[in-house]
């Protein structure tokens, strides 16, 4: 946007200014492409069912409040419950996963012990396993121990993430100096105290990134809850919306419900992402690979 105004103000562009125009335009096209569906869902959420199929798509409608009321009263507040479930699975799950991965990554990074390399690659190989390969036996095991369909059946398998452990190790390599650990040891601090009071705070920025990656991944996870859960009251938001849409395929009246549900489920995550963007340390993903 800023490029076009600059261009209009100064008709005689210098070569280096002209070189700015094309890159800017291409970037803005990319931004536009990424924003259009989000803008559409927000506008569509304001439409009543009849407006949805009759008015021009980007004209705001008048049914936002009705839609929201309908959404949150659908099946005695099922949507709100799904949202809370998603928050539980993604929030609590990612928090625990981040802690477990940080502790493991620190151990891999800052200790040398028999079996270190073998264990690390064993865990790392887990990245390549398809979710379905794990979901089926996990489902059977959960059935055998009587936990299938419970909150635990979705929460527990999500606590182990080979990629998160890998990232935690990369970050601990970079952020926790061996000399600091050594001097704390000389002062007589125990290994656990060194980790808790010295290493953990140093690893915090990296842990925020791991938490966010896990949070988005867990919020996104469809297969595991879809396989494990049968009770609708324990569904996360995406499985809930899927069942809503499946029921509504013959019945367009459920479309506006699914649309407003989609909008409501997307907006908090976007807000969170924009808010946490400054704390992200995504460079550690590629940083670990720089040759």
């Amino acid at each position: 946007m800023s490029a076009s105004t600059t261009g209009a103000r100064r008709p005689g562009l210098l070569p280096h200014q002209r070189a700015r125009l094309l890159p800017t335009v291409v970037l803005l096209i990319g931004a536009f492409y990424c924003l259009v569906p989000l803008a559409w869902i927000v506008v569509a959420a304001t439409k009543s069912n009849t407006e949805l199929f009759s008015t021009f798509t980007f004209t705001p409608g008048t049914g936002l409040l009705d839609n929201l009321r309908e959404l949150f009263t659908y099946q005695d507040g099922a949507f709100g419950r799904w949202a809370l479930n998603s928050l539980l699975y993604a929030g609590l799950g990612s928090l625990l996963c981040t802690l477990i991965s940080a502790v493991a990554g620190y151990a891999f990074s800052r200790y040398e012990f028999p079996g270190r390399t073998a264990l690390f690659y064993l865990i790392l190989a887990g990245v390549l396993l398809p979710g379905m390969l794990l979901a089926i036996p996990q489902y059977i095991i959960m059935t055998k121990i009587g936990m299938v369909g419970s909150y635990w059946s979705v929460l527990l398998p999500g606590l182990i993430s080979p990629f998160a452990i890998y990232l935690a190790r990369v970050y601990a390599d970079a952020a926790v100096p061996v000399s600091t650990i050594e001097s704390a040891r000389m002062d007589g601090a125990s290994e656990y105290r060194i980790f808790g009071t010295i290493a953990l705070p140093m690893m915090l920025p990296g842990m925020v990134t791991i938490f966010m990656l896990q949070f988005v991944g867990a919020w996104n996870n469809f297969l595991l809850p879809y396989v494990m859960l049968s009770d609708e009251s324990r569904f996360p938001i995406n499985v809930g919306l899927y069942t809503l849409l499946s029921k509504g395929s013959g019945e367009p009246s459920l479309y506006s419900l699914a649309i407003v549900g989609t909008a409501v489920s997307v907006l908090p995550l976007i807000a969170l992402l924009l808010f946490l963007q400054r704390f992200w340390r995504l460079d550690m993903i590629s940083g670990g690979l720089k040759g």
Partner: protein
Amino acid sequence: MSETTSGPASGPATDLAAGAAPAAVSAPAPDSGSGNGARGAPPPRAGGGRRGLGGFLAPYVFLTPALALFVAFLAIPVGYALYLSVQGLRIVDEGVFGTRSEVFVGFANYADILTDSTFWAGFGRMALYGVIGVPLTLGAALLFALLLDYGGARARRFSRAAIFLPYAVPGVIASLLWGFMYLPSTSPFSHVTEELGLGGIPFLDGGWIFPSLANIAVWGGIGFNMIIIYTALRGIPPELADAARIDGCSEWRLALRIKVPLVAPALVLTGLFSLIGTLQVYGEPTMLRPMTVEIDQTWVPLMYIYRDGFIRDDLPMAAAGSVVLAIGTLVLSLALLRVTQRRTFGGAQ
């Protein structure tokens, strides 16, 4: 399975970890000056003088939760899947009340799957979807990353945030979102073409389903891959680009000849993630299924496996299918790393 995978996987994994040390350069530690210590000194040896028995045990204690979870939710399930895949449901009791129970059937499940044309048709559809989606995702991500890195472009902060935004949208929700944008009754694109008298765009009909589905993956994937490549680009020493510019290198040549080769490891990583993601595509077609007649129960391999396991209740067959998929993933990932290794990891070290 865990044992068998760890062997071949440790090849490329070594390279991933070997590159880990320079991360200290790109990721500034909270207290400055610690970088030297982190890179210079080797980790303490187990049982070394200053650590007592508690110190010797500490790494194992730290690893206990992760290892326990790894065994419970990765190693045991993988082993169980392998066991299950050679079992079969057969009628064992003769007579009227013949019951189905699990018996050892060897590789019969694998033979059934590998000779089932439906399964291979699913692979073909998945491959077509990937061939459209992956190059577009990575190409666009690389282009945007280079433009962000090139100082001349305006509105970079805004564009970066906007292009990254779809990452926050879960894949299943993104499918729903695009599904409504494709659906003839709600599509804004079809609305425009209809107003122009051209008729709607058949996003969900016939062969259109492939680009339509691939577009969902592209939309959701560009941002994350762009950030990975962009952060790798930021790690290139500025002197390198300056020297090239002084030598009269154009920005275009600078990008193609210097920047792209230097971020090749990041490109391989994003390529690997895209490959694994493509092989495991499930949510997007499942989500669009209620909206179109094109997508059936076995449209991609994972849907086929899900059908076997949870609709036909034939878990051994589903386990065999998922083992086939896992081996396929492993082979393709290793092939990708092998092909690119010489040029990227090997060349850089």
